């Protein structure tokens, strides 16, 4: 089996750098654009994210998820860090996403977004309150306290619904992965 792109980066393969940029450059740039106020900020953030990706490449474990997900996870962490450093409200990169119900229909862009489509489908099965807090938190970029303001839920309830929702999505995604692997076998 061929080594993953990130494994090759970790081994110092400079050719793999270009392939990572071909494959994930648009993803990282699009996440940064959504999170940053202006293009210059987004460019700085993207540079910072890729440096982190090179340094973290050795930590990638293909049994835990795709490379896309690993890259997106690092990108989100860096973007959240930047937002916190700048003292801004934690508006997230996903503010202009079309909503989970739409995302589950539009995420059919090949293998790259398999996990994203699974996650969107999983959200659709959650209780309305959990869907709502996840949508406001992840797609509309509101902080916990802002979600409490908008929904009228107590802050503790928002946190609980958010935690339970994320955990439930993770469980449903695992079931979905099993079902997919069953269908393919």
């Amino acid at each position, binding site marked *: 089996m061929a080594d993953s792109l990130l494994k090759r980066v970790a081994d*110092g393969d400079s050719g793999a750098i270009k392939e990572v940029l071909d494959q994930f450059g*648009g993803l990282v740039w699009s996440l940064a654009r*959504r999170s940053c106020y*202006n293009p210059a900020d987004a460019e700085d953030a993207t540079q910072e994210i890729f440096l982190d990706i090179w340094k973290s490449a050795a930590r990638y474990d293909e049994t835990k998820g795709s490379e896309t997900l690993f890259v997106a996870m690092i990108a989100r962490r860096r973007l959240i860090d930047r937002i916190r450093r700048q003292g801004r409200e934690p508006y997230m990169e996903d503010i*202009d996403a*079309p909503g989970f119900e739409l995302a589950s229909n*539009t995420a059919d862009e090949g293998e790259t977004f398999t996990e994203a489509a699974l996650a969107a489908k999983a959200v659709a099965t959650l209780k309305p309150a959990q869907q709502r807090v996840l949508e406001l938190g992840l*797609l509309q970029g509101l902080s916990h306290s802002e979600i409490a303001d*908008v929904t009228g839920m107590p802050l503790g309830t928002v946190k609980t619904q958010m935690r339970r929702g994320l955990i439930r999505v993770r469980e449903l995604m695992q079931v979905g992965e099993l079902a997919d692997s069953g269908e393919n076998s």
Partner: protein
Amino acid sequence: MAARIPEDERLGDLLATRAIDGLSEEEQEELQELAARFPEMDPDELDRVAASLAISGLRIEPMPASLRGRIEADAQAWLADRERAGRDAALAPPAAAVAQFPARSRPAAARGGWLAAAAALVLAVVGWLQVDRMDQERAALAARQGTLEAVVSRLEGSLAEKDAALAALQDPAPERLLAELQGRPDTLVVSWSATDDPAAGGAEGAVLWNPVEQAGLMRFRGLAANDPAVAQYQLWIFDAGRDDRFPVDGGVFDMPSGADEVLVPIRARLPVGEAVLFAITVEAPGGVVVSSRDRIALVAQPGA
């Protein structure tokens, strides 16, 4: 399959908060301490779930070529540094080469001269290796310094350009911003249409928006003056790429009384892809996160 997240409410809270909002330094330390109690746990699980949701429906834009060039240069510099560090570590003499002579026993004392000579030879060789290694380190450091100076110089140049661009657009005087925007061919100019809201009565003017610079300004005549302690105006920008329910907040502002024309810079809180509608609402002091849209005073629709 990854191990499940333990039934520890605080740990779950911290992991979920990190996945959504990030954590403060104190919270990160607390998370590390709690996570250490569950070594079988996969602490990144919820982050991956959040990342899955974050990229669902994401519209992918190509990365600018100039940015890609800079990232490739950064990556090559990083690879070179790493390779150099690995080479230096390999060149370092093993510690055992200069130590651990066994204690001399009485019979061995007779061979003391030979051993002393051998030790002197080993020290000489090690000394030569050290000198050679120092030379190599000096050369490596000089090369690294050259690379770093080039990177710093490039970054300084880039920063200076960005500072200049930002200074020109971030907080210029409204009149200067107006001139800047009017001087650009890609600036969108759309006239306001008044609604039947009492604040609007006969108001007119236009909104100027430059999508490339993500900067804009509003011109008003005749919009009713407001008491900031009672209500404020708020701009909303509807973006073709966003859900209509959540337009971009363009900033809260006031109308002074007795002014002929009022210029108000737009302060969009998020990037705007394609503006399809600008709307001014009347809101509670300080503005709102999500407008009830009960009072819409003015709208401006590009292409209408």
